[in-house]
């Protein structure tokens, strides 16, 4: 009989150990806990069209390499690192095969069209859409590292030290790049006069 979710340990490390012993339910629970973040990370790198399959790939790779997790970082951070590598590989492959490495926002579908209707007034809603489109455009203009850190912080909702661990940089670097990114975005959005 498979254990109910309540019977599963809260600690990812213990779940990981059970997953290593071949307990599929334990790995399923790890997927459940981390899939949202992994998807959000993939979304930032490869765009909406590929985010789902990149996230799926990430978990399959993680499962096959479960024994290489050494517990030095958090399990979630380890997963994010695999997700980033998976996405970077995909982007490289796109480039190698001559496909255009499109912006993660420019994947043919209008992300704003699916935006939840937060503003009741159509005019207000249109303005909201315009503001988001402008933000997306300004993000695209950021230097690569700044954009990456900004998106991991605000859209993948990662902590500063997790970002540092995932990218293999110092926390101070993350803070500096994030500050520069926000400052530049505020300036380009006209919030700094």
């Amino acid at each position: 009989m498979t254990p109910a979710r309540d019977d599963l340990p809260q600690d990812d490390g213990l779940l990981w150990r059970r997953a290593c012993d071949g307990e599929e339910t334990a790995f399923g629970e790890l997927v459940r806990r981390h899939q949202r973040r992994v998807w959000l990370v993939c979304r930032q790198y490869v765009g909406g069209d590929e985010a789902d399959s990149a996230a799926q790939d990430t978990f399959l790779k993680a499962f096959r390499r479960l024994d290489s997790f050494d517990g030095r970082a958090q399990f979630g951070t380890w997963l994010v690192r695999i997700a980033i590598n998976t996405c970077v590989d995909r982007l490289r492959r796109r480039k190698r095969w001559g496909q255009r490495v499109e912006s993660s926002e420019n994947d043919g579908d209008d992300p704003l069209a699916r935006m939840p209707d937060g503003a009741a007034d159509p005019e207000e809603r249109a303005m909201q859409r315009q503001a988001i489109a402008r933000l997306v455009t300004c993000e695209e203009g950021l230097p690569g590292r700044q954009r990456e850190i900004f998106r991991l912080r605000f859209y993948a909702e990662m902590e500063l030290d997790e970002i540092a661990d995932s990218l293999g940089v110092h926390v101070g670097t993350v803070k500096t790049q994030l500050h520069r990114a926000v400052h530049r975005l505020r300036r380009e959005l006209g919030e700094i006069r």
Partner: protein
Amino acid sequence: MRRHLTEDEITTAAAGLASQAEVDEHLAACMTCSRSVDEFRRLVSERRASLEAEMPDWGAQRRRILVQLGEPWAEVVPLHRGRWRRTLLAVAAVVLAAVGVWLQFGRQAPAPVKPAVPVEQILAEVDATLADDQVPGFEALSPMVPTADEMESMMTNPAS
């Protein structure tokens, strides 16, 4: 209290980076500065909401992952990836199968060595053929060609 925060301090607050207690205190009291911070944060959270609207069905995604893990032979490659590899493997499999079939059945077997026919048997067959009057082409010669019996009597009694 200071009149307003610097842009740098507002950026620090908007980025969610640790700011000094003095800055937090100011933001709590100053509408203008707190509006600057909130404006940026609201825009970012609206963008995040638009991303959440794209999110897949987590349950379905989880099932897909677990199904693939349960079937290790199901190669997990996205649609646009690995096609050439599968084609190459298929071609290699066909070639291997063909080589196997050829090794098993197709190689030229050495011609069987026929057992040597005894000379007596050949002579007997020739005699039988020559004795047969019906063999075409021998009609004209038949009066001149002695039969086997005549030949035998000639050999046993040369005088006759």
